C-alpha cells in the first residue's frame, strides 16, 4: 500500500517554464488536496477535489491549474513559473471530509 505518491521529489525550473506535479493515491479516497508550504511557514491550500471530475479553488490558486479525471490522480499544473512559486508542494487525500489527511512526501520546487 503506497498511500500518496508525489513525483518528482525535486525540480528546478526557469522563469516562464511550465511543469506538472504528479500525485496519485491508491486508497480510493474521494478527497484530494494540493498545498504549498513556504520555508518556515504553514500550509496554504491551492486546489482541492471532492471526486473525479470535480475541482475547486483554495486560498492561493493563481498561477496553478488542476484536473481530476480519475479517483487516483490529481496533477497540479504550473504555467509560466515565477520565483514566487518556489516552495514545497504537498498533495494529500482523505476518504471523507471529516477524516485525517494522508500526505505525500512533497515536491521541492525552485524557480530561478
Amino acid at each position, binding site marked *: 500500500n503506497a498511500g500518496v505518491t508525489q513525483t518528482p521529489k525535486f525540480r528546478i525550473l526557469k522563469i516562464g517554464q511550465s511543469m506538472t506535479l504528479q500525485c496519485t493515491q491508491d486508497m480510493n479516497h474521494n478527497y484530494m488536496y494540493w498545498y504549498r508550504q513556504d520555508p518556515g511557514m*504553514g500550509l496554504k491550500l491551492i486546489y*482541492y477535489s471532492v471526486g473525479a471530475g470535480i475541482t475547486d479553488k483554495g*486560498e492561493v490558486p493563481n498561477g496553478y491549474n488542476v484536473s481530476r479525471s480519475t479517483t487516483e490522480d490529481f496533477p497540479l499544473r504550473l504555467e509560466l513559473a515565477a520565483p514566487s512559486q518556489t516552495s514545497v508542494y504537498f498533495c494529500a487525500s482523505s476518504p471523507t*471530509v*471529516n477524516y*485525517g489527511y494522508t*500526505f505525500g512526501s512533497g515536491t521541492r520546487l525552485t524557480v530561478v
Partner: protein
Amino acid sequence: GQQVMQIPQYQHVQEGEDFTTYCNSSTTLSNIQWYKQRPGGHPVFLIQLVKSGEVKKQKRLTFQFGEAKKNSSLHITATQTTDVGTYFCVTTSGTYKYIFGTGTRLKVLA
C-alpha cells in the same frame, strides 16, 4: 475566512520538560485536527477532536478541545528528542477545505 492562531510560534525545551501548544479561534469550530511535521518531512495526522470538552490521549500526548469549541491544546509530557518538529492545528473552512494554523515549532535540547 476561518483562521486559527497558534501560540507559541517557537518553543525550546530541555529533554524531559513538558510542552504545550495552543490553538485559538474567534469563531466556533466544528472540529479540529492535529498534525506533526518533522524537519524536512511531511505532515502526519495525529488526531481529530469533535466534541465540546473532549480530551484524548496518545501515550505522552494529551489533546483537548475547549468547552466552547473555540480553542484546543496539545500537551506533551516529558519531551523526548523524537518530539522535535512543527505541530499544526487544522480546522475546516466551508464544507470541504481544511485550513492549517501557523504551527508551533518545537526544539528539544538533549
